[in-house]
């Protein structure tokens, strides 16, 4: 026994050192093992957050660099030469090889395909080039090795309806298809690969080089050409992964708020045991360590499980992602430093979340703790009062940023605003329980009792409500945001999904403009009939003719189309912005402009900005044009009024037709239109990508709903445990199973309804703040999805509560063992 006395430390306060900490942590872990079910909600939330962080960061790391690689391969710089003659080009390439050492040359030539607006790119590239490997891969067959051989991409093979071994006529040459190729960094890159020896004869040549930007810019081509130098690939992947990691940190911070509420519940449930520990001589520090160690253990489990889940999800998603993002992905390319950081963050977040509940529980007087009486909760009004400024600040920040995200600062502000807003909602949540209790004064006994229990045990119900509000808020925000994004995207892109643009030949957007040939009425009638045939391929089509303004007899050239140009970018050189079309009521209707209501002094209406000039006449500055809101990029965007035409004595020529239908145009309809157009010497253009945002919206809604339902299901278990005391007493006083069912159904349904109301209201406020400049984007509201969130989930929760409460408590008189 003397040995024991001597083994005791002699410190004044005597915190017991490492043996004491070991004993406390051991006990905390044993408790976690015994009571893990009660912490499943927190564990699941943290695990999902870590999974999202690791999976998202890995995806970002792998997806981001593709754009650079698609254009530059593994080169750090590119030099782009346009329109060089072959002899000069050979000299420039040789000089480049001497200047840079190793180079890789890619030549490009564009040839038209009948019926298609987009020409085919004939690309000459060495498959064994020093830098081009990330841009070229063989899918089938072999690479072209001689004149007259090509390898095509899948998309082009489909368009040309060829396969390996077939022949195809392009640019007055018959080519033999010897292979299928792809650009692994851009699967949408449609091209035909030709023998590398044909690079010199190309319209443009890109030289891929290593070295610095300064080195590339100091290169002087012997031909005197000034190549466009593009910067080398940076650390886009790393930056994107860091960006996702920062976003994940915000997500983890939000989850840790919910986790903190969960740890409050855990600490309060263990209050009596903490009292026992204190009675055995534990200090406040030891008591804190119990809850903190619990939090750290939860964080560690969530970190490991979440990281594993994230990686599994990543591996499972790779095939789908390749299709979605349009480039090949190396699934083994995992940024382990990101995974490590995310797991450490999860442990830190959980430990930090446990700190405050640990501190509060450790400060409860020992006698009160032993009696199991938690300290009197703070009135909800106080937390609500704290919540309001956070909500106001969040809305203000989101309104300031709006939906125009242009920079990293905007993204950071959105994150700060969202976090402030969510924090405010979480602080406000307990007050809503109290308000609901007041509203339910005249409700039936089970409903009244359920809501009063929720109000009485706000520390518990507040945590559940916060989690539900957050989950449903995110789901509602995703639904609203995707709806708004769908609206916004409908006003963007080349065309809407219900439009086809039929053109007579190719209308250039850059370079020299050729005169439009003077067609006879018979030729025009034939073309009109072809357009009608194309229109007949889609349902209920409306055809709007589009005329371009012509400047007759300019410098001896007749029929040159009028154009809108920029200021001079270099002496005597302006950039063409668009052709100038004749304003008609039908066309201006797409910009919500009534031609009859346009100021008579206005001659030019345009979507272009800045100082504008008109050509091909003597350059004429555009005086006071009427600015139009930006619309679809392929639709005419600059117009001259009939009065403007008359004043200038300009003529018009039919250039295109806009075919509009009531339903989205299918791929089959588009293919048929292309065939008809090709036969008539016309080209057809449709929306580049159709349906992606609908799929995104449906997918995001489904994911949001599933996550919310999962959290709700877990919460019902917590609620059931909380109401078991009431159920026991009710049963002892003769309550039927119907009353018991009603009690739990009201608890679960009421909590879910409150969560849905708070979450949806929060989501509405946040999305309205983000779209304050264009509230029209929110309409029509996605009613079905919001109804599912706002009513469907509460009903499901109530039903689950009703079904789960059927069993009579096994021991009516006894309290359950802790």
């Amino acid at each position, binding site marked *: *026994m003397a*040995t*024991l*006395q001597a*083994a*005791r*430390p002699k*410190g*004044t*306060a*005597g*915190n*017991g*050192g490492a*043996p*004491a900490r*070991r*004993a*406390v942590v*051991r*006990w905390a872990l*044993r*408790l976690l*093992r*015994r009571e893990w079910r009660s912490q499943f909600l927190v564990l699941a939330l943290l695990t999902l957050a870590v999974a999202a962080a690791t999976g998202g960061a890995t995806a970002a790391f792998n997806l981001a660099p593709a754009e650079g690689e698609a254009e530059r391969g593994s080169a750090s710089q590119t030099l782009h030469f346009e329109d060089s003659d072959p002899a000069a080009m050979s000299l420039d390439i040789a000089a480049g090889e001497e200047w840079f050492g190793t180079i890789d040359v890619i030549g490009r030539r564009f040839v038209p395909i009948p019926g298609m607006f987009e020409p085919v790119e004939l690309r000459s590239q060495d498959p064994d080039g020093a830098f081009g490997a990330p841009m070229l891969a063989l899918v089938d067959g072999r690479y072209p090795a001689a004149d007259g051989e090509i390898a095509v991409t899948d998309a082009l093979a489909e368009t040309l309806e060829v396969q390996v071994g077939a022949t195809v006529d392009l640019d007055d040459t018959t080519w033999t298809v010897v292979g299928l190729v792809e650009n692994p960094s851009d699967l949408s890159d449609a091209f035909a690969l030709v023998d590398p020896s044909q690079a010199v004869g190309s319209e443009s040549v890109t030289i891929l080089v290593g070295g610095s930007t300064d080195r590339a810019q100091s290169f002087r081509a012997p031909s005197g050409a000034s190549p466009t130098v593009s910067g080398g690939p940076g650390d886009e992947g790393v930056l994107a992964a860091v960006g996702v990691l920062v976003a994940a940190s915000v997500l983890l911070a939000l989850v840790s708020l919910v986790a903190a509420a969960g740890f409050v519940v855990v600490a309060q449930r263990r209050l009596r*045991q903490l*009292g*026992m*520990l*204190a*009675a*055995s*001589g*534990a*200090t*406040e*520090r*030891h008591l804190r360590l119990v809850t903190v160690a619990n939090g750290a253990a939860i964080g560690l489990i969530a970190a490991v499980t979440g990281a594993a889940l994230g990686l599994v999800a990543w591996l499972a998603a790779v095939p789908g992602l390749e299709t979605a993002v349009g480039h090949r992905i190396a699934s083994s390319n995992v940024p382990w430093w990101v995974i490590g950081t995310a797991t450490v963050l999860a442990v830190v977040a959980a430990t930090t979340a446990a700190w405050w509940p640990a501190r509060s529980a450790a400060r409860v*007087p*020992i*006698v009160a703790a*032993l009696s199991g009486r938690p300290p009197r909760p703070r009135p909800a009004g106080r937390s609500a009062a704290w919540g309001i400024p956070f909500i106001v600040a969040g809305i203000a920040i989101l309104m300031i940023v709006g939906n125009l995200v242009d920079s990293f600062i905007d993204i950071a502000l959105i994150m700060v605003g969202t976090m402030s807003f969510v924090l405010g909602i979480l602080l406000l949540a307990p007050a809503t329980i109290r308000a609901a209790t007041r509203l339910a004064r005249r409700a039936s006994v089970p409903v009244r009792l359920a809501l009063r229990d929720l109000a009485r045990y706000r520390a518990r119900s507040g945590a559940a409500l916060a989690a539900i509000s957050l989950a449903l808020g995110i789901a509602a925000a995703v639904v609203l945001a995707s709806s708004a994004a769908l609206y916004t995207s409908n006003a963007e892109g080349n065309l809407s999904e219900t439009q086809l643009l039929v053109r007579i030949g190719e209308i250039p957007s850059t370079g020299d403009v050729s005169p439009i040939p003077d067609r006879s009425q018979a030729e025009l009638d034939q073309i009109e009939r072809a357009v009608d045939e194309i229109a007949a391929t889609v349902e209920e089509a409306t055809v709007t003719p589009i005329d371009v303004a012509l400047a007759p007899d300019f410098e001896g050239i007749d029929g040159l189309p009028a154009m809108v140009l920029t200021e001079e970018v270099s002496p005597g050189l302006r950039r063409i912005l668009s052709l100038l079309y004749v304003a008609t009521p039908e066309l201006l209707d797409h910009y919500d402009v009534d031609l009859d209501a346009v100021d008579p002094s206005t001659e030019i209406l345009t979507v272009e900005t800045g100082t504008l000039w008109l050509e091909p006449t003597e350059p004429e500055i555009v005086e006071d044009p009427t600015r139009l809101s930006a619309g679809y990029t392929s639709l005419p965007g600059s117009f001259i009024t009939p009065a403007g035409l008359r004043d200038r004595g300009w003529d018009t020529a039919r250039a295109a037709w806009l075919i509009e239908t009531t339903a989205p145009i299918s791929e089959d309809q588009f293919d048929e239109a292309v065939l008809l157009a090709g036969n008539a010497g016309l080209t057809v253009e449709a929306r580049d990508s159709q349906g992606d945002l609908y799929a995104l919206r449906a997918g995001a809604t489904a994911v949001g709903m599933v996550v919310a339902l999962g959290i709700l299901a877990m919460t019902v278990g917590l609620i059931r445990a909380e109401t078991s005391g009431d159920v026991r007493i009710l049963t002892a006083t003769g309550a039927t199973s119907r009353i018991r069912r009603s009690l739990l159904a009201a608890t679960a349904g009421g909590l879910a309804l409150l969560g849905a109301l708070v979450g949806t209201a929060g989501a509405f406020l946040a999305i309205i703040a983000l779209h304050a400049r264009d509230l029209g984007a929110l309409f029509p509201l996605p009613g079905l999805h919001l109804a599912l969130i706002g009513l469907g989930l509460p009903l499901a929760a109530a039903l689950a509560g009703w079904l789960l409460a059927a069993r009579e408590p096994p021991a009516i008189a006894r309290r359950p*063992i*802790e």
Partner: protein
Amino acid sequence: MRSVLEMHQVSKTHGSGAMEVHALKEVNFAVNGGEMVAIMGPSGSGKSTLLTIAGCLENATAGEVLIDGAAVSGMSRDEQARMRRRSIGYVFQDFNLLAGLTAAENVSLPLELDGVATSSARAAGLDALRTLGLDDRAGAFPDDLSGGERQRVAIARAVVGHRRLLLADEPSGALDSANGETVMRLLRDICRRGMAVVVVTHDSQIAAWADRVLFLRDGRMVDQGTAPRGPESLLNEGLDL
């Protein structure tokens, strides 16, 4: 001989204003080593409050509490915790064993909290359990122990590490009479080894095991005297015969 526990003019007040309740009013008493004192009184008389103040579980509003001559009122919370670990053992009516720890771990816990190495603490804990006849139940968790066994484990925890003062709040309240008697016999044995024991009870049969009985009513000590001849004295007389 210096008293292990001394209370001088100890008062305890809960709440304030109209809600003010005087749980204890100017209580004075002392307990020496080897002495067992029983505290009796009706519900709400302040018995348990007196015990929690004596056990450094809460502080008196006024007056002075000395344990082994050290004034508790001037101690920090950590120093009071150390006092609980080293000098005071507490036995509760409902055992208050930590559910996640085995019997041996529960017993050795105060030593480990005091910085004793795990192996030494465990050896001391097993020794205490052996003394109380529970060495074969050392690895069992509280859920697997009977009520009597749980209370004996709680007593082992209260005496391990050479404590000077044992405070028992209705130690046999949750036990049947046989187990209750066993517990009181153990407390009596502990007392004989020099520990000061204070037992709070409603039961005069339990109080009969004590050397002295203090009576509390409405927070005041109203009487104190020698315990009536209780079961142990009868037993001893019987043995003497």
